């Protein structure tokens, strides 16, 4: 399909940052297209409860994400989801984005808000036993592991808090962490250390998941001594952080060594007319509120850029 429209703004990503940007640009009467690889709402819709979003007493992330999507659409923003971005040209004056290897869309400006995704271990057996012992969500799957022995992988707040939470079900929880110290808050570390059901395998990494129909064991290597052991478990929960969805933009726009987009205080990247927003941008805090703020700033900066282009075009046509 060839869409001949040259949009004012194309936004890549429909999480909180992308939707906020879409609300602002479409409200400002800029023709806006959001292209999204996953479900609209991004990480936001995966959050069970949001109680600290100003102006909203308590809601589910799913509801908040749905409202943002409806708001953006109500102002005329087009949203296309669950597609693959296969090529981009961001350096030309008119920027283009190809999706699914066939459909091409063009715009004066592009806002990159691709968000992040849970990091996987990428070891043998991980994909095979997903849903058959391996999980990334304690709230979702914890009750399948009543009186069973499990592993929690990770050393941040999520891993420590979920390990404690999983002791409601599991008979024993072994935390496997690659460093000799945890990165979580002091209270989270203390809660985990004081829990009698929790054991620790520090400076260790999982090498392989083993089983037949379901997960039965994990092969764990101590990275300091090189010693390997088999831990018999029926479940493993993996909480090792998030990775920005920016691999596709590696040779296109400036990223740091962690794959995070580098932007200035107006969310401008190193390419004129291209902006970054949300969890994929280098910044110290990642919250729904900070994503929305990024999206707003990126949208206002993009609007200024588009208005300048249109002013120049008008001057030329009148000259």
């Amino acid at each position, binding site marked *: 399909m060839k869409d001949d429209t040259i949009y004012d703004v194309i936004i890549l990503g429909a999480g909180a940052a992308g939707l906020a940007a879409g609300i602002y640009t479409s409200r400002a009467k800029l023709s806006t297209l959001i292209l999204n690889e996953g479900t609209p709402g991004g990480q936001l819709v995966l959050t069970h409860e949001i109680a600290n979003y100003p102006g909203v007493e308590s809601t*589910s992330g799913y509801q908040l994400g749905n409202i943002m999507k409806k708001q953006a659409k109500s102002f005329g923003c087009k949203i296309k989801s669950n597609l693959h971005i296969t090529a981009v040209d961001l350096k030309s004056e008119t920027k283009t984005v190809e999706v699914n290897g066939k459909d091409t869309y063009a715009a004066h400006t592009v806002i990159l808000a691709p968000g992040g995704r849970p990091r996987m271990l990428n070891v043998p057996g991980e994909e095979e036993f*997903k849903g058959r012992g391996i999980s*990334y969500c304690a709230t979702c799957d914890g009750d399948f592991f009543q009186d069973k022995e499990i592993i929690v992988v990770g050393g941040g707040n999520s891993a420590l808090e979920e390990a404690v939470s999983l002791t409601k079900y599991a008979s024993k929880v072994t935390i496997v962490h690659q460093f000799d110290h945890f990165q979580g808050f002091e209270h989270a570390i203390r809660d985990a250390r004081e829990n009698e059901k929790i054991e620790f395998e520090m400076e260790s990494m999982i090498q392989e998941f083993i089983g037949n129909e379901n997960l039965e064991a994990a092969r764990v290597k101590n990275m300091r001594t090189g010693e390997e052991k088999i831990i018999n478990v029926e479940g493993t929960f993996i909480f090792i952080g998030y990775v920005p969805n920016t691999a596709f933009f590696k040779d296109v726009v400036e990223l740091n060594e962690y794959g995070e987009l580098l932007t200035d205080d107006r969310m401008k990247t190193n390419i004129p007319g291209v902006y970054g927003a949300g969890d994929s941008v280098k910044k110290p805090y990642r919250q729904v509120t900070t994503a929305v703020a990024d999206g707003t700033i990126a949208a206002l900066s993009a609007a200024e850029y588009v208005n300048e282009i249109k002013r120049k075009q008008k001057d030329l046509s009148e000259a």
Partner: protein
Amino acid sequence: MLQTNLKHIMTADEHQKFIEENDNVMICCGRMGPMCVPVYGIMEELEDDYTHVTFADMEFDNPESAVIRNAPECRGFMGLPFTVYYKNGKLVKATSSIQSMDQVTAILNEQFGEPK
């Protein structure tokens, strides 16, 4: 009731009637959690294109959902959602935990054919 835009199946009787009355059926049985919501989103997205497939959800914690939870094809499943596919009333495929758009469309195309 799940907060999705899909058809909600509330009882085992309704489930039986649904799979008998529709040739090609996909039902996602889950909660409003991070592994389930993306699958509902994919189904909502596919409804317009896969008009030869009927989509629905069923709440995992509803006792009536035992019809899916206890299906032999779901034995050993330890991750939400349980997603089940029926052809002419017979369960032909089941998956556990989150699935991508590519994984879902591959199953739909294999079991029910690609959209025209």
